[in-house]
């Protein structure tokens, strides 16, 4: 993963290239109401990369994710995913891009009235996938996150960690190329956190680009991966080797 770092280091000089899966160039984002700002963010991820994003609470980790999946737009600079400028996408084209992404939301966004199966299948239903295909994909996905026994439970009947894993299942059931996991271990104890991390590493080994935000330094140390640190609105990349 040191090659990842070299690329991340060279990011400023790297020309915009459609080859990269994710590319942020001189991105600025300001929330006028809270006077919060991300300043001149540069980041390049290639297919199969694994990156931690860390920073204090309120440092802008979630905002960075939102910029990538198009829930927020950059005020300056550009965010490219698979070569397309996310900030310019609208309507159906944005929808189709999002099908290539899996997002684990910090607040899960599970629908309380639906079972785990329904919540996970919902992604495929929303994309118009046939029923048989949904059935076929559902079980392996739930098994991967260890929730096959909880398939028919409602979110309120799950522990925090199980909810988190349900939201991971939902993020990966559509076979995304890029997985954005916002504090996927936020509510988990050490054992569960490691378990989730194992899942994400496994997905990464299958070629999926994985971005994880966390403020758990212990977690970062268990994986040799580069860390992007958000501080005062700026992003600084620390190579895997230098992570303490």
């Amino acid at each position, binding site marked *: 993963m040191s090659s990842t770092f070299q690329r991340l280091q060279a990011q400023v000089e790297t020309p915009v290239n459609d080859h990269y899966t994710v590319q942020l160039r001189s991105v600025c984002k300001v929330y006028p109401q809270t006077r919060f700002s991300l300043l001149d963010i540069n980041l390049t991820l290639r297919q199969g990369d694994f990156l931690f994003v860390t920073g204090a609470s309120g440092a802008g980790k979630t905002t960075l994710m939102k910029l990538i999946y198009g829930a927020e737009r950059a005020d300056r600079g550009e965010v490219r995913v698979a070569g397309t400028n996310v900030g310019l996408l609208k309507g159906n084209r944005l929808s189709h*891009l999002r*099908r290539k992404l899996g997002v684990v939301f910090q607040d899960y966004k599970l629908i309380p009235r639906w079972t785990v199966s329904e919540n996970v299948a919902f992604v495929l239903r929303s994309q118009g996938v046939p*029923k048989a295909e949904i059935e076929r994909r559902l079980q392996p996905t739930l098994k991967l996150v260890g929730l096959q026994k909880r398939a028919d439970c409602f979110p309120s009947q799950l522990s925090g960690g199980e909810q988190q894993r349900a939201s991971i299942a939902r993020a990966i059931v559509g076979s995304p190329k890029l997985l954005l996991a916002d504090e996927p271990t936020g509510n988990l104890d050490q054992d569960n956190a490691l378990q989730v991390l194992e899942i994400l590493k496994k997905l990464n080994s299958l070629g999926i680009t994985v971005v994880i935000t966390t403020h758990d330094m212990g977690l970062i140390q268990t994986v040799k991966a580069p860390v992007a640190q958000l501080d005062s609105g700026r992003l600084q990349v620390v190579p895997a080797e230098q992570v303490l």
Partner: protein
Amino acid sequence: MPSPRFQVPERLKLVSTKLSYLLQETLRGLRRGGWMNWAAISTVTVLLFLLGVSLQTSWQVSGVLNRLGSRFEVAVYLQPETSGQEFQSQIAQFPDVSSIEVIPKEQAWQDLLADLGTTDIVGATEGLGENPLVDALKIQAKSAVAVPSLARQIARLRGVENVQYLDEALKHLTQLNRGFSQISLGIIALLTLTAIAVITTTIRLIVVARNQEIEVMKLVGATTSWIYLPFILQGITFGLVGALISWGLIVVTRQFIQAAFAQQPSFLRALGEGLQLTPWQTMVLPLILVGFGSIVGIIGSLFAVRRFASK
């Protein structure tokens, strides 16, 4: 290489997947609507019932008017012992006359008896001694404006007993009909707005209740039409159900009225026949109700999702 034959089922499967999804989601929306569904459906029903009834009435009135005769017609009744044939050529010389039909008193008598429901012509004639009627002429004027002066000219001829034209009566009837149409048009416009408002409210409540779902749908890549089409379909359902109910009500009332007329003496029965719709009108009326209902449903639901969809 798969033959093209095998591609058709695949595509069919996709279409059926989409259709069953839309149907399921629409049903889910309807279940969520609860009693609000009925509020929406009953407003649409009242609207469409009124629309249907006033449309039908205006058709019926013009049907009756047609039966009463054309606005261009002047009826001339001659004095007894005067022959209609003699007058024909004389009247044909008036410039405003477009055509003349002679009705000999024998034919008029038969028609009258038939109208009264008697078939025993000989018996009836004997009862009265002789045919009490006179020869008549039906004259078509070239324009409605010319009718009054033409009538006056003919009335001056010798041998003419009486001249009648329906102009005045028709004018009143037509005005009445027009007034009625305008009032019902006003009410229909108001009811249309009400129906749209009720549908909008009903569907918006459901959209708001499912806001969280919709947000997640957007985030996982559902297209706008995929998200909002079920709501539009729900609106159309309101329109269709309303059209069906109001159509049923209209048919039942019409049959009821016609049955009432059928019990009456024959000349009222003849009027009742004037109330009958042509086959074309009978077919078009439900189509109009369905079309109008769907349009109201679509507009109402579009208003309900518009603000959300554009987000």
